[in-house]
């Protein structure tokens, strides 16, 4: 089968969870491997094929000078480039450094800071190269990932909803934790895709799928304050796994005091 499209998977600063989602496709993995040629996926194979690649999936954020160069090379080798996960689309949890002094972060962890080469900021892939599609989530949803791959193979736009987690709660019949129990929840400003897991487990959404399309974060923040949340609570809530995503970053600044 010489004409199968070539798929590549790349890792930058991340936990491997999003590429693991691909290996977690227990039932679909072998059929996927039949539909595409897995040309570069180091977590899965020592055999690598040279580019160009028809579709590159990129996990992780840019945090070192070497990675800032490597992503340029990945873009040159890729016809289509899709970023997967909160690290690649928003800088990830490691973007908390963007709000602190990096020297102080390095010396808090390493005895010899001079051995560490790192950038002051953790930035999403789109800050460095043009990106064809961004799939949000920490981690991404396995079925959404398969949808994105299928869509790109078929040359269509991926069917990924941009509405909020609230819609998923309603569909699942989960009572609203914010309204019914007074539990602070980021669901109203967070993009759907996870299946509204947290409210299903009796806790508020903590925003790991990042901002939905046009989120009204100030209104939600007022709702949290009415439930007794402090500025510090709000600051931390908006500064977690998608701290670098613009609507969350902006709202966090409003509570930074």
């Amino acid at each position, binding site marked *: 089968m010489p004409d199968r499209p070539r798929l590549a998977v790349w890792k930058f600063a991340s*936990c491997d969870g999003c590429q693991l989602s691909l290996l977690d496709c*227990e039932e679909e993995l072998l059929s996927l491997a039949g539909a595409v040629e897995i040309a570069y996926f180091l*977590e899965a*194979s*020592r055999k690598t094929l040279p580019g160009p690649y028809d579709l590159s999936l990129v996990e992780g954020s840019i945090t070192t000078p070497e990675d800032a160069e490597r992503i340029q090379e990945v873009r040159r080798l890729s016809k289509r480039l899709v970023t997967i996960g909160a690290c690649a689309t928003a800088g990830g949890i490691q973007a*908390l450094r963007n709000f602190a002094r990096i020297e102080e972060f390095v010396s808090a962890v390493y005895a010899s800071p001079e051995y560490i080469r790192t950038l002051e900021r953790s930035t999403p892939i789109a800050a460095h190269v043009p990106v064809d599609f961004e799939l949000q989530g920490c981690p991404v949803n396995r079925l959404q990932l398969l949808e994105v791959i299928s869509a790109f193979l078929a040359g269509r736009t991926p069917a990924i909803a941009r509405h909020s987690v609230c819609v998923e709660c309603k569909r699942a019949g989960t009572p609203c934790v914010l309204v019914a129990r007074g539990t602070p929840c980021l669901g109203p400003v967070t993009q759907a895709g996870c299946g509204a897991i947290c409210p299903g*487990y009796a*806790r508020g959404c903590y925003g790991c799928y990042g901002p939905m399309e046009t989120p009204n974060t100030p209104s939600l923040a007022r709702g949290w304050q009415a439930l007794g949340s402090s500025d510090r609570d709000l600051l931390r809530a908006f500064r977690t796994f998608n701290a670098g995503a613009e609507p969350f970053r902006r709202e966090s600044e409003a509570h930074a005091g």
Partner: protein
Amino acid sequence: MPVRKLTLEQLARVEGEGSLELSLQDGKVETARLKIFEPPRFFEALLRGRAFSEVPDIVARICGICPVAYQMSAVHALEHALGVSVGAPLRLLRRLLYCGEWIESHVLHIVMLHAPDFLGYPDVIAMAREHGAEVRRGLALKRAGNEILRVLGGREIHPVNVRVGGFYRLPTPSELGALRRTLEPAREAAIALLRWVARFPMPDYERDYEFVSLRHPSEYPMNEGQLVSNRGLSLAAEEFDSEFEESHLPHSTALYCALRRRGSYLVGPLARYNLNFDRLPASVQSLAREAGLGPACRNPFRSILVRAVEVVFACEEALRLLAAYEPPEAPSIPLPRAAGEGHACTEAPRGMLYHHYRLAADGTIQEARIVPPTSQNQASIEEDLRLLAESLLAEPEETLRERCEQAIRNYDPCISCSTHFLRLVIRRS
């Protein structure tokens, strides 16, 4: 003599980024360096100032393959700091959750990452063309482990249901019933996996390691126990610093952890098995013997077999726990808000994982320290590679390279955890 350089550009099928550099002189291996250049993410720094309640969600993001291990060490250490402990039913659910992660992570490593080395394939997909039934059986088994994580944790990667003091929500009887029906065939699949792996050709190599793992009075260790070794070590988690020290070397973004008095040591399935064979149920012991393992095993290549034994154990243990489970009154226990300091070690699939936290009076983290298994094994991996490479110097470079990669995978290294990707550079002079 001219310097000869052999480069293994990428070590694949490990979780992370790094390289291996061997310097050879007069037919001897001078140095073996496992260089880890996974970009650091500074978790211990970014945890400071966070509420203790956020820690289980944050530390899960250190590793997508073993998030439960990070959550378990964190909740135990934080409960230690707060001076509380959960009752028997919640403890049981935590152990059940850990069984899920051991199954999922071990089967991923055995079938998808390590078995291709033994059978001579570049990856699981190529291997599946000739060993399709075994691969599909492995994937189904991995799915069973993931199903435990999904039911108890909410999802497989970065579970959401773990909190300091217990869980957010208890599983329902119907969820647990479905889990039992998934695990019964999984136990059979795990035995078949062990018998399959027992037929793999094993390189002949042994080393006298210091094994370090938890040891519990009655159970095969997961969440609790004394830290012990085969050279007389026996201490509680809070005494970790008295015997272990971390150091920072220029070639690695992972810290090295060593025993203050004796240097390198080994954590993980091989260590747990050697130190706790007597804690395995008789049924699992006899399956291990049938697979050719005695109570002691010093061949790191046979760790794949030990991992398979642990998968059988985890399936059996999960079924036992499900049968014994009686729901607690509440999904979590009440927690005080107080200053304090706490330590805990639990057994991640790859080995012992130490966490230490200092809490301020307002319940925020003042200081955090995390010592993952791969940084503890880094020195031991380098010693294995040095000895192994020395015995293989006469072999073609491709053989040497493949065997070194396989030896690194013996440890199932999780380089994202320890800070990720291996490139082999061999310098000959």
